[in-house]
């Protein structure tokens, strides 16, 4: 999988680089074009502006030249006249002034007295010397620019000398010339602004066109930028809206191609990995691991194809696994060999819908032939693949047997508890009824109640002991146990039962019996259980023999009967919890299956053990060996 991811990332990165290169190549002309266009538009506007200004200036200059020439002609003409004649030229001066655009025009004599003027009121007045002409008068025309007037026209102050006939003093023609024709410059500026506005509009239009053209690519670029980190997994997210234009559609087609390529790559890699895994499973490490499982595993795909099965599954389903690679194509329906195999397949099919999909469920399958129970679990393997499942088959026979034994135990314990309880109640009511006043009957009632109470008590002790054994919390007391008293008391407790069943109960105690350290009550339970079993499973007329020997280090108690006997198979079984001999004759007797378990556990906790020697139908001998601890000197009985 890691290899697959790396390959996909490499492919996508290459693709991104290609896209980036394409983008960069497109970016240059885009921005260069934009800049050039902008420069062109600006330079065009500037050129137009400059040209207009120059044209305007030239035109003004030409006009001024013509005006000044006209003024000079007028001066020459006036010079040919006598002063008296000049003063009569007022109307002519006004005409000239009006035609040449002079706001002022006058002729003054040497004393700066106005001889003639465009303004009649000035004639005869004396003009002060204009500060602009403060210096020595030139023999040429002097022009002093006065700047623009309120209407934006260029104004110039001019003065030139003329020689008037009959006068020695120099006369001057003075005036103010408005050089530019009215409104010309303003008209040029407006035109320039229109040109510039046009240039900007053209630029904006071109920009919009370009932007529209490149918007798809810009969108792609944004996506690439934002998603480049997770590109391998989110290639789909790079799609842009088809409505963005032809380029965006082309891009989306490219994405489709990449996705398809990616899928093919994944399938190819996954297929290779699966093949590798299968090869491993047919003889590699994984197979060894899975074959070591106690459970049977089957991997089912496509509703019925057995993709994998471990050796336990082969053993359980009972068909021979083919050696060649095609073994992975075995179908569920191919399992016909074993009856049990067919059962498993039927159970799996029951958990399968009509469309071949599996549902996760648990089902028990019974193997009547071998008395086994299997728990079949169907588990989903991958999300979205309902036609694929993992079937796990676990042998739960032991658990089922344990559950059954426990149920039987509860049932038996209930029965065992109720029996003495029933007797106690019945005999107690007999006493309290007052209907039976025979002293012997009354005594018998008391005896039965006492005996059944002890029986009940021992039973409860047994149940407690087995609970403690199960919980691992059994505690032993450190009593000093008089072995002779212990054994004698145990025999006395069961004497009544032996007499009832007409069984010969004998006791053979060694002369040397001392004391040992141990839990007196629990050891009494051991003896009672051994004797109780011997009497229970020995028919009337039989015999039960109890022997007890004791050395300085070991105590040996033997309980021998002439009863049903125990088969070799049952000899280990009878010591297991809740288990009884698998013998119909034994089953006839009630029992909980805890007596011998408790007895052996108590013996073992005292450092000893209990063994059984028996043959079916030949009676049984139970031997309890126990080390003697802190023994007091043996009491030797004489006689």
């Amino acid at each position: 999988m890691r290899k697959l991811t790396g390959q996909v990332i490499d492919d996508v990165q290459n693709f991104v680089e290609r896209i980036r290169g394409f983008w960069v190549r497109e970016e240059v002309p885009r921005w260069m074009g934009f800049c050039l266009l902008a420069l062109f538009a600006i330079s065009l506007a500037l050129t137009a502006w400059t040209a207009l200004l120059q044209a305007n200036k030239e035109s003004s200059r030409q006009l001024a030249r013509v005006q000044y020439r006209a003024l000079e002609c007028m001066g020459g003409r006036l010079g040919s006249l006598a002063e008296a004649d000049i003063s009569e030229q007022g109307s002519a001066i006004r005409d000239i002034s009006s035609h040449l655009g002079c706001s002022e025009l006058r002729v003054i004599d040497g004393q700066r007295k106005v001889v003639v003027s465009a303004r009649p009121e000035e004639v005869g007045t004396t003009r002060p010397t204009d500060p602009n002409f403060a210096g020595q008068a030139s023999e040429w025309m002097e022009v002093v620019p006065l700047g623009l007037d309120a209407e934006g026209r260029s104004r110039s102050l001019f003065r030139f000398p003329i020689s008037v006939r009959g006068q020695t003093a120099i006369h001057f023609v003075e005036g103010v010339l408005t050089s530019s024709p009215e409104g010309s410059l303003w008209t040029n500026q407006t035109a320039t602004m229109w040109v510039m506005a046009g240039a900007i509009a053209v630029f904006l239009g071109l920009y919009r066109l370009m932007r529209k053209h490149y918007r798809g690519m810009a969108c792609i670029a944004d996506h690439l930028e934002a998603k480049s980190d997770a590109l391998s997994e989110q290639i789909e997210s790079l799609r842009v809206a088809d409505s963005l234009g032809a380029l965006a559609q082309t891009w989306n087609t490219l994405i489709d191609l990449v996705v398809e390529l990616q899928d093919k790559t994944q399938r190819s890699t996954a297929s290779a990995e699966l093949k590798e895994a299968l090869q491993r499973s047919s003889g590699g490490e994984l197979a060894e691991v899975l074959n070591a499982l106690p459970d049977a595993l089957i991997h089912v795909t496509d509703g019925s194809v057995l993709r994998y099965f471990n050796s336990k599954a082969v053993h359980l389903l009972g068909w021979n696994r083919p050696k060649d690679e095609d073994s992975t194509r075995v179908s569920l329906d191919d399992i016909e060999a074993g009856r049990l195999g067919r059962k498993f397949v039927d159970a799996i099919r029951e958990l399968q819908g009509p469309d071949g999909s599996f549902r996760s469920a648990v089902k028990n399958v019974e193997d009547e032939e071998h008395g086994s129970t299997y728990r079949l679990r169907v588990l989903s393997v991958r999300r979205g693949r309902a036609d694929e499942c993992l079937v796990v088959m676990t042998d739960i026979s032991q658990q089922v047997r344990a559950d059954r034994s426990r149920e039987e135990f509860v049932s038996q314990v209930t029965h065992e508890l109720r029996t003495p309880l029933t007797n106690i109640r019945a005999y107690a009511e007999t006493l309290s009824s007052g209907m039976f006043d025979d002293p012997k009957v009354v005594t018998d009632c008391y005896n039965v109640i006492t005996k059944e109470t002890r029986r009940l008590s021992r039973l409860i002790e047994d149940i407690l002991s087995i609970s403690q054994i199960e919980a691992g919390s059994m505690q032993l007391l450190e009593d000093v146990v008089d072995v002779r008293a212990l054994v004698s008391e145990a025999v006395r407790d069961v004497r009544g039962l032996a007499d009832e069943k007409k069984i010969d109960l004998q006791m053979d105690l060694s002369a040397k019996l001392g004391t040992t350290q141990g839990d007196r009550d629990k050891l009494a339970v051991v003896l009672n259980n051994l004797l109780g079993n011997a009497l229970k499973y020995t028919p009337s007329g039989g015999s039960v023999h109890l022997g007890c020997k004791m050395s300085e280090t070991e105590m040996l108690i033997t309980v021998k009967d002439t009863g049903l006997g125990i088969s070799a198979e049952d000899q280990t079984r009878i010591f297991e919890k809740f288990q009884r001999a698998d013998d119909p004759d034994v089953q006839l007797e009630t029992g909980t299956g805890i007596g011998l378990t408790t007895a052996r556990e108590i013996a073992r906790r005292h450092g000893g053990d209990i063994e059984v020697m028996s043959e079916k139908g030949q009676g049984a001998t139970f031997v309890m060996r126990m080390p003697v601890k802190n023994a007091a000197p043996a009491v030797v009985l004489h006689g």
Partner: protein
Amino acid sequence: MAKILIAEDDAHMLRILSMWLARNGHEVLETRDGQAAQDVLSKVDVDLIVSDVNMPRMSGIELVQWLRSKKSKTLPVIMLSSRCDQDAIAGQIRGCNVNLHPKPFSPSRLMVEVEQLLSVDVPA
């Protein structure tokens, strides 16, 4: 006076039932298992049976099934059981017309029931 058969493997229970029934003036036939009871029933006609369920050789259930199929469909039977699966027993003896009682039980109440069953005149 009626003739009553007791089938009970526990000696103390057998004895106390016997005592109470005898005290009520009935003749009591004691058996220790279903097989022995069947043998007695084959030879002797009785008026009522008091039986345990769990017994060696033949259980009370088998005894009553045999009785109903082979011997009598009306003979009153009282069955006493110390097993915890009373429902299962009831299912096994359904249709056998048996009065089933769990142990422990009250002997005096049992006697009342015995008298009631004996007082009903049933055709043989």
